[in-house]
Every structure is written in C-alpha cells, then in structure tokens.
C-alpha cells in the first residue's frame, strides 16, 4: 500500500517546524537518489515558482469618498485609465493599460515606457500617484471632479486580482519572415534569428501539478511577494490539450486566476514592463506549494526540464493569422542552455521569464513553510482537468446588421 498523507498531517508538521520542504528543482535529485516511495514518505511539500510577464493582471481599488461625494465615471492614475464601471469610488486598473495620449505604435516600434503595471509597482513602492476622476454628478454624488495625490496607504482596499496568470506551458516564438518583429514575446529576429520562450520549466507551478490534483480554488500561494490565493481557473483555461506520456501539456493549457491584498505585497515581485512595439505589462511573481500527498503527486512534481516540451510557433504569420505551420517542439533543457535546433539550424533561445527569480520565489516559499508561517490550504473546489470537455473558442464572425 502506497504511503499517503493528508493536508492536516502536513500542516501539523509545519506547525511543529518539522515539515520537510524542498523546491521543485531540489526534488529532482532526491527522487533520483532515493526513489519515489522513500522520497514520498519523507518529503511533505515541494515549492514551485515563476516570475514573468503576465498581462492579464490588475488591481481593484477603493479610493474612499471625496467631500462632496463623487460617482466616478472615469478614473486616471498617473494618467493611466482605470475602469470605473463599478461602484462610485471603485475602479480596476489593468496592467496592460496605457496612458492617455501614449504614442503607441504611431512611431513604430513604440516604446510603451509606462502603463498600468508600472502604476501598480509605483503604488506598492509607496510612491505618490496622481488621481484624477470625473463624474456626471447626481443628487447623491454631486461632485464632478477630483484631482489629487494618493499613496497606497490612503486607499481603503487594493486587491490584486489577476484573471489569467501562471500559464501552464507556453509557445516558443520564432520569426520565419525577413523582418524583425516586436511581440509580447519580445524582439524576434528575422529568419529564425532567435527563439523566445517564457516559462520557468521544471520550477513552474502548473507544470509540477499537470492535472491540478493539489492546486485548486482556495489554494494559498506566494503572490507578488505576499500571500494570495487561487480564486478560480484563469481565463482561457484549456486543460484538455495534447499531453506527453508524463501528463505534462505540450502546449498552453491550464491557467489560474489569483487574488490577494496588494498592501502586503512587495514591489520587487510586481514589476512594470515595457515591450517595445507591443505594449506595457507587468511581471508577476507566483509560487505555489505542492503537498506530497502520495507517490503520484511526487512523481509529477519531480518533472525535469528535458521532459517538458513547448511548441515552436512562428509569430510573423503563424500566430497572428492563425496559420498552422509545424515547427515541432523544444524542450526546456535545450531552451535554458541558450540554443535550440530547428530544421537543423542552431538558434539562440531568449528567455522572457526569470529563472533566477523563480528560484528565489520557490526558496522563499520553502523558508516560509519551514518557519511555520505559511500553512497549506486544501482546495475548496477542483479546477477543471484534462477530462473536462472545454472547447477553446474564437470570436464568432457574424453580421450585426442581419444576414446571420
């Protein structure tokens, strides 16, 4: 009978300071040396980490009321618009939002030096932020304009809520055309000049729990340097995709929606980014603990870079126009070495996701758990897994003027 543990048993060990916690990289050698059975008995938790651009991120803010009160219909923070179509002084600032009058790509490739992600970072760093808001005025909210300076501490709430983070695997971007392209995967040089990839591979949360056996709604996580929770599956969650024999998806698959109190996070782990020719976004640091409840969960968590593959996708034609161009797969051992081979040609690989920082997240989370300050939470509901019949839909092309 294979050894099994419960969340409660693991948390008891965490409270006593006796939990055995290792990172998703350290666990690989331990399993290789000791074997699954012994390692599964000894190890209680494996910690994962990822730190990279995650555009689908943002923060809900409540500014408190002005005197007289205002029902904000438009809100700007340092000139970057936040969505105000929620209650009077609530707004949602998205990481990819650009300032009013940003030149965008009018002079191509645009610089995108500042955006919503930068505002979130500046707020978190304690900087002063200009708040401008307008409203149309009502009997209960007569004020029509607010123009002031705020800091994070002045807000009632700042709730980071990222609808799609921690993508389980992602494309490796290449460029088959003869001109340089500027993408959310960075600069991709012409004629297979480089190959840009973005996950932390063997450290990445969902690649270590490919069927979401432990990561679910309510899982407590490292988020932006503080504590957060998995709120739901992320948008575009698409678990029923091509998987390897080890169960690991070979293309983009699961995603997470995550939530947490911005005020207890750290600006080092939420960083505004500028992708030339593409836009502004934010790097998010996420770390998820995986409780080693049984041998199977450990075998998934011991996955190695060489056994994780991602699809090589052309971003000049293939991705933007949805053309199917088969360029095969690359594994993360090759990608992290700095060179991959496509069609017999050796190509420089360009990371977008910081492995150094992913390691720091995994080891920070490990220290928190070992110190007893971070207990594991059992999911209150599972995420849809590979057996879910989820269809990845596109926008329907219909004529709103009839002729359906």
């Amino acid at each position, binding site marked *: 009978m294979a050894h099994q543990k419960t969340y409660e048993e693991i948390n008891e060990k965490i409270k006593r300071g006796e939990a055995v916690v290792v990172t998703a990289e350290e666990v690989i050698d331990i399993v290789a040396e000791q074997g699954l059975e012994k390692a599964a008995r000894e190890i209680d938790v494996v910690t994962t980490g990822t730190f990279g651009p995650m555009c689908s991120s943002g923060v809900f803010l409540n500014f408190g009321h002005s005197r007289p009160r205002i029902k904000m219909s438009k809100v700007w923070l340092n000139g970057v618009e936040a969505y105000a179509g929620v209650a009077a002084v609530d707004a949602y600032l998205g990481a990819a939002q650009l300032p009013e009058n940003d030149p965008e790509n009018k002079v191509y490739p645009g610089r995108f030096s500042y955006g919503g992600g930068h505002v979130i970072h500046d707020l978190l760093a304690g900087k002063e932020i200009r708040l401008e808001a307008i409203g149309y005025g009502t009997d209960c909210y007569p004020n029509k304009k607010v123009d002031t300076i705020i800091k994070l501490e002045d807000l009632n709430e700042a709730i980071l809520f990222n609808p799609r983070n921690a993508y389980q695997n992602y494309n490796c971007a290449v460029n088959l055309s003869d001109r340089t392209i500027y993408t959310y995967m960075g600069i991709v040089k012409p004629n297979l000049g480089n190959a840009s990839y973005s996950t932390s591979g063997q450290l990445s949360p969902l690649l270590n729990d490919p069927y979401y056996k432990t990561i679910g709604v309510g899982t407590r996580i490292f988020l932006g340097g503080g504590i957060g929770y998995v709120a739901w599956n992320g948008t575009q969650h698409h678990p029923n995709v091509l998987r390897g024999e080890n169960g690991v998806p070979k293309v983009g698959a699961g995603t997470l929606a995550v939530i947490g109190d911005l005020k207890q996070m750290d600006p080092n782990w939420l*960083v505004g980014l500028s992708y030339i020719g593409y836009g502004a976004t934010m790097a998010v640091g996420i770390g998820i603990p995986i409780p080693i409840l049984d041998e199977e969960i450990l075998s998934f968590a011991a996955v190695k870079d060489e056994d994780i593959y991602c699809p090589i996708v052309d971003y000049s034609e293939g991705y933007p126009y949805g053309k199917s161009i088969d360029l095969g797969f690359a594994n993360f051992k090759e990608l992290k070495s700095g060179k991959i081979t496509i069609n017999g040609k050796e190509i420089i690989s360009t990371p977008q996701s910081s*492995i150094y920082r992913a390691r720091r997240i995994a080891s920070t989370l490990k220290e928190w758990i070992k110190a007893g300050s971070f207990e594991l939470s059992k999911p209150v509901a599972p995420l849809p897994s590979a057996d879910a019949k989820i269809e990845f839909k596109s926008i329907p092309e219909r004529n709103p003027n009839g002729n359906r």
Partner: protein
Amino acid sequence: MKNRVVCYFSAAQSEQPIIYQLIKDYDLVVNILKADINPQKEGYLVVELEGKREKYKAGVDYLKSLGIHVEPLSETVVWSEEICIQCGACPSFCPTQALDLDRETMMVSFDNSKCIVCGMCLDCCPTRAIKLYFEVREAV
C-alpha cells in the same frame, strides 16, 4: 590603431560622403555603432575607426577639416542591477557577450569593457534597466 569616436556634424556636413572617403582615401575599417540625424540634418555619428596610425590620424584630420567635431567616446552603457529582473533576454541580442547569462545561476552580468554601444539591449530590456549615457551635446 582602433578607436571609438563621436562625430558631430551640421546640415552641410551631413551631405558629405565621409564614410566613403574614410574607407577609400584613408583605408580605415569603419564600423558605425550609432547614428542620429535630426530633421534639420544635424546630428552625430558614433563610429569605430581602425587602421594604420598615420592613416587614422589623417582620416581624423580630414573629418576636422570639414568642420566635423570629433571626440572620443566615453563609457556609456549602464546596466542597473537594481532594476534588472534577471529575465535573461538581453544576452541574446548582445553581439559581444558584454551582457552575459550565467547558465548555472541564470543571472545576467555586464562587462562594460566588451560593450560596443550597439544599443540592441536598450530595446529588448522590458524593465529598461539598461541605459545609454552618451556624452552627446546638442548638434553643432
């Protein structure tokens, strides 16, 4: 000898085929590292010149004879370790490995002495941790 210099020129001078002359008449290896010309056709050229000592001097004298100001290029690219998030993208674009990614630690480092100021890293850095500090004056 080999040197990196900044050449400042005016509108009239920008019409001159100076690169052609430097190569043809002075037998210099010319490597243009950066050039910027404003709509008034004034601007500067950061260039690496390589050739025999006497030819190099004659070439620079030729530039000066046209009224082009020639100044040595000071160290200019600055990488901020505090701002860098160690994503590791920039070494892919650095032609001289001045920016390097240690494959063990997966940390980026910058060796100023290897930098040729091509500026590719400035565009590919998503945190803008790499900045170019030119000692460039207003165009003359």
